[in-house]
């Protein structure tokens, strides 16, 4: 019986064109994803092969998850088939067993779903064989990989999913119900994934992920490219547990389906209504004649409006009380709640729920559901009357053709507003819960209005497509094609908003600058698309089907009939507006601004390198004096620059060619320097070559005067003109002329480089390249310079630049505007690296030992100003004592809009983004205070960059970033204690280990790193902390002080990490040489774990604790190939009593000592005073170890 049902059902499935459509579409997607970079679903990056086992398993799993919503049609379809076709009662009247019936249907649906994944696998297999795939990015294809992927991932994943769908379909007897259930499951899965996405919850996350991605991630989290290319995780541990758990869950779901299945008409009902009391007896009405009150049928404008309004309200109620909408709303709100509760963290510390953060949370976790709601309800609304068979009645009413369409659009918009408003209310509730009461109703309202406009445009398109298609499913297909095409077009660099329906430039919001000038451009685009949407709606009204479904011929005949004066006028007006706005937008984005599609930008970058890299080593003068006047016009987004350089020839040969670089945005008004000819002037690349009539002799200097203008006019296709803004301008010395070729402008991604015909990216100069020591990290055209600036702005803003304020005054400029001027001057040379800022600031001032301290902040962001000030003080006093005196007499921190997320240290001046630190919510004393930490780091750069700057070669960023990290760690540890440091370092270690598995070129040891952030920041923190732990803080500080003393303000040749390590070895002594080498000069990974802990109470009341240990050390090369080494460093052995509150940071340390432990397995016994609870090796995770959870273990008392 089972096999008959199975075969019958499978035949039905395979006969369905939908099966083949979905299988083909998915196979094509897999084919494309495997063979090109334009579609990315997981996949290999950098050194990982496109067809690496890791990638194949990951892609097949992702396809399985993506397929969830499509294969529902097969699996749920199998469960619903007989109910939909009305054949159910015939089947259940046969002596067929429930198990055979359900089992057969389920098995066939499952097999069909797996069939789709088999086609996907074929797509992946063939995709990488295509001739356009770079063979360098392929490894051998192995059948085993696919067997593993199906055995471990696809088959069990799909089994669970199918069981879930089958259960949902059986219980709800509705496809919609099944989908809603699936979406609920999907949202829960996402919440669980987000909730467990931190290094603290890896194990839980690995088990509760039904698809095993979490467990797979734990097993492969820190794999190198080499491992990803050759290995697959063994089916043990968490992965095995996960697979077994979810396979069992699938079986349980199938069993539940069979148990709960009811063949009767009603299906399963969780509750049954009580029967009503006996129906009223039917009374035959007395015969009476027809009398109806007289009524008038109105047809005027007022009546039309009233009809429109009532119909819109009626349609709106239909949607708002529809199950699908309510379910989506509930999911959205759950998702948003989860997102709010769990996101916006840095190092586990939350930021204040300022309103614009709330709206960003809605963008990220809530609004996407509107896409589904719109797509779904466009179909529902257009087909509402027809699916309820009411159109037969209403179509014969004397209602004008356009009213139903207009009502449906209105209902759609109302639904969008309600949905957004519900999200906003939830955000307000969240703000209240967090005790935040600075609500900004205006911002919420404008956010709702802007997003309503955005989604209403999509809604108009969806309605249009539904009307034109005149087939609900074709309509759905068309709208899906629209969504897919938007993604695909962006991937293919067709990224102009002029031809992507409904799109507009992003609208970055900053508390400092509001929506700023971005709003105008955004709204122009919206108006442009709204005009087209109006035209589409007119066409839709013309083709609105009334009466019997008709063919195209008949529909166009009716459309022509309806095409009277009003629609003609409206269509013409909207198309004219569309064209006119299009021209206006084109003028703004492409004429007065430059539009560069993504691929063109890359080609231009490649051209830059191809044309000018030949001049990299051409001798150029260096800047020695800078005097620059900057007039900022924040409201006009304009800057006028008049500058004066002194250039010196510090080389040994005459210089006749001057190569000037200037960003495209800066226009040259005038240049004045020694007599010269223009050899070439490349404005696209901003690279001009001048030939000096008299070469600049070695040792000679020349003046170089310039007048420049930067003016952001109109609006752009992407909102990247955020440097000069109404409130919160931040410009830096990149806007000024520079000399010689700049390697930073080169194309970095190695695949892009290959595509645009460039050799593999040139690497940083080797550490022993003596010639490179002529130049420091910040550029080749200056060493230390004098600096003076007069910067002016509007009267209500404060303008700042490095240096000390000499004078401040207000005067009226020739065009009659009042201007505020600030004259800043440095009294000693600094690096050629300046910032220019202007905003309406509040200022907090303080002093420390004659150093004046200032924080400039947005008045609404006063939360952490005191912490930042405190950090400045503590940092300055620590570094001033431990390393060297502070070279300036003033230190300033300045907030700038969150368009960019960084803080950067200029001489005595630190621009600090509003999105980090200023709005961190530090009220919880347990949280990591990163406002304090980032400040300490940036102040650290006043020593480690602005005193000691390294030569631009391998390892150089260790000398500024790693040392700034170390400095900040020490200040932070002093402030918050070692327990919090451990929490912080755990994040740093995890980010380092994940960073190295994403390496695309080559992982370098710390002291040779090539500006690799995961190394100089993340590994830097871990390594420096370990170094301090082994050698002692005093010794490390002393070495840094000695090094600073010798190298500060050094002229070329600049220092290197090799010099620093010599200082360190000298101070540490030979017993630490091998550790220093392991930490700085090699990629060293430790594998320490405790395998058993037993404790025995002694007669004297003390305890003998015996730890069975495993130690190991490996060296990895740049692509992760590992070689075993001998574990030879002393390591912490710790024994701990139970902490009273369960928090690790409050536990009592019974024993903690560095011990020499043999390589491999060994055991060690220590005696402690109190009752041991836990014990371990390297219990505080000071060494780089891929599995940090196995370093401790609960003690077993004997």
């Amino acid at each position, binding site marked *: 019986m089972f096999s008959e049902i199975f075969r019958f059902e499978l035949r039905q499935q395979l006969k369905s064109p939908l099966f083949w459509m979905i299988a083909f579409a998915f196979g094509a997607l897999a084919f494309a994803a495997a063979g090109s970079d334009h579609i990315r679903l997981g996949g290999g990056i950098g050194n990982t092969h496109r067809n690496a086992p890791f990638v194949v398993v990951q892609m097949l799993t992702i396809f399985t998850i993506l397929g969830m919503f499509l294969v529902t049609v097969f699996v749920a379809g199998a469960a619903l088939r007989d109910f939909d076709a009305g054949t159910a009662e015939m089947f259940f009247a046969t002596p067929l067993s429930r198990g055979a019936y359900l089992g057969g249907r389920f098995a066939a649906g499952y097999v069909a779903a797996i069939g789709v994944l088999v086609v996907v696998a074929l797509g992946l297999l063939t995709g990488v064989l295509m001739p356009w795939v770079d063979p360098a990015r392929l490894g051998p294809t192995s059948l085993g990989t696919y067997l593993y992927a199906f055995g471990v991932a696809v088959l069990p994943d799909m089994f669970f999913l199918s069981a879930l769908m089958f259960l949902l379909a059986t219980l709800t007897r509705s496809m919609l119900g099944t989908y809603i259930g699936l979406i609920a499951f999907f949202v829960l899965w996402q919440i669980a994934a987000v909730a467990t996405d931190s290094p603290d919850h890896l194990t839980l996350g690995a088990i509760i992920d039904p698809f095993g991605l979490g467990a797979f991630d734990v097993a492969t989290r820190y794999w190198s490219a080499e491992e990803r290319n050759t290995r697959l995780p063994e089916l043990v541990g968490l992965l095995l547990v996960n697979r077994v758990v979810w396979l069992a869950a699938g079986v349980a779901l199938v069993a539940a389906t069979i148990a709960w299945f009811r063949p009767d008409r009603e299906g399963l009902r969780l509750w049954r209504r009580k029967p009503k009391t006996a129906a009223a007896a039917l009374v035959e009405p007395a015969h009476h004649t027809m009398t*109806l009150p007289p009524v*008038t*049928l109105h047809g005027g404008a007022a009546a039309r409006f009233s009809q429109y309004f009532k119909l819109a309200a009626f349609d709106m109620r239909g949607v708002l009380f529809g199950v699908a909408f309510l379910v989506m709303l509930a999911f959205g709100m759950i998702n948003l709640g989860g997102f709010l509760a769990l996101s916006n963290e840095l190092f586990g510390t939350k930021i204040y729920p300022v309103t614009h953060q709330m709206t960003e949370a809605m963008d990220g976790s809530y609004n996407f559901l509107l896409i589904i709601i719109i797509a779904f309800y466009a179909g529902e609304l257009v087909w509402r009357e027809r699916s309820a068979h009411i159109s037969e009645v209403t179509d014969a009413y004397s209602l004008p053709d356009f009213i139903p369409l207009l009502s449906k659009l209105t209902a759609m918009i109302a639904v969008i507003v309600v949905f957004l408003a519900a999200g906003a209310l939830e955000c307000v509730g969240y703000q209240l819960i967090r005790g935040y009461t600075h609500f900004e109703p205006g911002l919420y309202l404008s956010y709702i209005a802007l997003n309503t406009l955005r989604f209403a445009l999509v809604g108009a398109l969806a309605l249009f497509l539904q009307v034109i298609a005149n087939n609900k499913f074709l309509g759905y297909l068309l709208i899906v094609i629209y969504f897919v095409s938007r993604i695909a077009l962006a991937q293919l660099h067709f990224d102009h908003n002029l031809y992507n329906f409904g799109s507009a430039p992003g609208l970055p919001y900053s508390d400092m600058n509001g929506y700023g000038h971005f709003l105008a451009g955004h709204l122009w685009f919206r108006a442009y698309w709204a005009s087209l949407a109006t035209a589409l709606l007119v066409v839709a009204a013309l083709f609105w089907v009334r009466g019997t479904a008709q063919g195209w011929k008949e529909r166009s005949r009716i459309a022509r009939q309806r095409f009277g004066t009003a629609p003609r006028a409206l269509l013409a007006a909207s198309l004219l507006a569309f064209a006119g706005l299009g021209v206006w937008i084109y003028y703004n984005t492409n004429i007065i601004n430059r539009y560069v599609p993504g691929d063109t930008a890359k080609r231009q970058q490649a051209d830059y390198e191809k044309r000018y890299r030949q001049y990299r080593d051409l001798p150029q003068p260096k800047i020695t004096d800078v005097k620059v006047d900057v007039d900022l016009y924040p409201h006009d987004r304009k800057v006028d620059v008049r500058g004066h350089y002194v250039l010196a020839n510090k080389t040994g040969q005459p210089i006749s060619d001057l190569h000037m670089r200037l960003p495209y945005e800066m226009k040259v008004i005038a240049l004045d320097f020694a007599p010269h000819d223009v050899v070439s002037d490349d404005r696209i690349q901003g690279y001009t070559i001048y030939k000096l009539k008299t070469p600049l002799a070695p040792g000679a200097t020349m003046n170089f005067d310039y007048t420049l203008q930067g003016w952001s006019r109109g609006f752009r296709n992407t909102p990247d003109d955020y440097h000069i803004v109404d409130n919160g301008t931040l410009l830096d010395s990149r806007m000024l002329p520079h000399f010689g070729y700049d390697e930073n402008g080169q194309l970095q991604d190695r695949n892009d480089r290959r595509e645009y015909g460039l050799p593999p990216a040139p690497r940083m100069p080797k550490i022993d390249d003596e010639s490179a020591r002529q130049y420091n990290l910040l550029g080749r055209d200056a060493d230390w310079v004098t600096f003076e600036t007069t910067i002016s702005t509007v009267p209500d803003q404060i303008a700042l630049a490095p240096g000390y304020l000499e004078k401040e005054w207000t005067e009226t400029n020739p065009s009659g505007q009042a201007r505020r001027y600030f004259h800043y001057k440095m009294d000693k040379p600094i690096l050629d690296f300046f910032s220019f800022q202007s905003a309406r600031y509040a200022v907090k001032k303080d002093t420390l030992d004659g150093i004046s301290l200032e924080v400039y902040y947005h008045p609404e962001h006063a939360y952490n100003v005191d912490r930042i000030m405190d950090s400045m003080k503590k940092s300055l006093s620590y570094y001033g004592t431990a390393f060297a005196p502070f070279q300036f007499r003033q230190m300033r921190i300045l907030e700038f809009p969150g368009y960019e997320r960084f803080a950067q240290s200029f001489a005595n001046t630190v621009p600090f983004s509003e999105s980090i630190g200023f709005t961190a919510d530090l009220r919880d004393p347990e949280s990591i205070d990163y406002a304090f930490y980032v400040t300490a780091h940036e102040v650290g750069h006043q020593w480690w960059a602005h005193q000691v700057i390294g030569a631009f070669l391998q390892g150089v960023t260790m000398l500024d970033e790693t040392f700034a990290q170390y400095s900040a760690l020490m200040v932070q540890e002093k402030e918050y204690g070692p327990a919090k440091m451990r929490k912080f370092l755990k994040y740093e270690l995890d980010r380092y280990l994940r960073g190295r598995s994403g390496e695309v070129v080559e992982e370098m040891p710390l002291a040779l790193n090539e500006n690799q952030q995961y190394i100089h920041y993340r590994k830097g923190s871990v390594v420096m902390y370990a170094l301090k732990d082994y050698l002692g803080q005093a010794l490390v500080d002393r070495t840094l002080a000695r090094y600073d003393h010798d190298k500060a303000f050094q002229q070329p040749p600049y220092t290197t990490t090799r010099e620093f390590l010599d200082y360190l070895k000298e101070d540490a002594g030979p017993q630490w040489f091998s550790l220093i080498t392991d930490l700085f000069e090699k990629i060293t990974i430790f594998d320490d774990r405790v395998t058993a802990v037993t404790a025995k109470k002694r007669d004297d009341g003390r305890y003998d604790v015996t730890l069975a240990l495993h130690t190991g050390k490996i060296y990895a090369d740049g692509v992760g190939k590992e070689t075993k080494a001998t574990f030879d460093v002393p390591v912490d052995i710790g024994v701990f009593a139970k902490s009273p509150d369960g928090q690790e940071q409050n536990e009592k340390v019974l024993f903690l000592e560095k011990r020499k432990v043999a390589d491999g397995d060994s055991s060690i016994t220590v005696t402690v005073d109190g009752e041991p609870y836990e014990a371990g090796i390297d219990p505080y995770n000071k060494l780089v170890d891929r599995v940090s959870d196995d370093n401790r273990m609960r003690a077993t008392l004997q």
Partner: protein
Amino acid sequence: MLTIRGLSKTYANGVQALKDVSLEIPNGMFGLLGPNGAGKSTLMRTIATLQDADSGSIHLNDLDVLADKPAARRLLGYLPQEFGVYPKVSAEAMLDHFAVLKGVVVHGERKALVDALLKQVNLWDVRKRKLGTFSGGMRQRFGIAQALIGNPRLIIVDEPTAGLDPEERNRFLNLLAEIGENVVVILSTHIVEDVTDLCPRMAIIAQGQLRLTGQPAEAIRALDGRVWRKTVANAAIDDYRQRMTVLSTRLAGGKTILHVLADASPEGGFEAVTPDLEDVYFGQLRMHAAARAA
């Protein structure tokens, strides 16, 4: 007076639903009789402006229905053969909604009208109930209520009595008869009694063609003395069918009663019966079949 001239319609799949149909329909009930698939619904839907004909014209008095649909719709009340309701909406709310759509936008007028209609169709007591809980008869009465909104001059009801129990059917037809006194009411049906009982005038349509039009009594009179009846064994029916024009067969007590059309008694055992409209109807259908076979 509704005047239909030369109406033809062929669907995209080649089915010719109407072939040159011409009809004159005065005020009062007009029965449109025909088997399933005869083209009744196509004709009704075309009159109701829901479908265009390939050729031909429809005039209501001076109004060209096909050319000026908006004007025609203002005079129209239509109860389609199959129509749905929003199951979760109450009868009163739905009727109110319909009244707005028809143009009764003045609130007071509308309220009075809806109340009167609900009373008229005897749904007053259940006006707050959700339409999804209505029985077939209640739904049909609700349907006629919406068709009566706005004093229509032309009412079209398409097979309204199918599926109703006898009591509901009676009540429904009484209602129609009352309405039909001053306006054109077209009642399409395949149930002969509906027409016999109610309609002063009628038409029979089959295979898209108008077979007969006129008063039922006249049509019946034309068959006087030509309808014969005999009770025969079930097994013999086919034999009779081959030899004579069998109008209808009906089982009674295990045997079959035949009605046969013939100018004189076809053979022994037949007795003359008084013809009724059903005989007329089947007679038209058989004649048509015979004509086709010939």
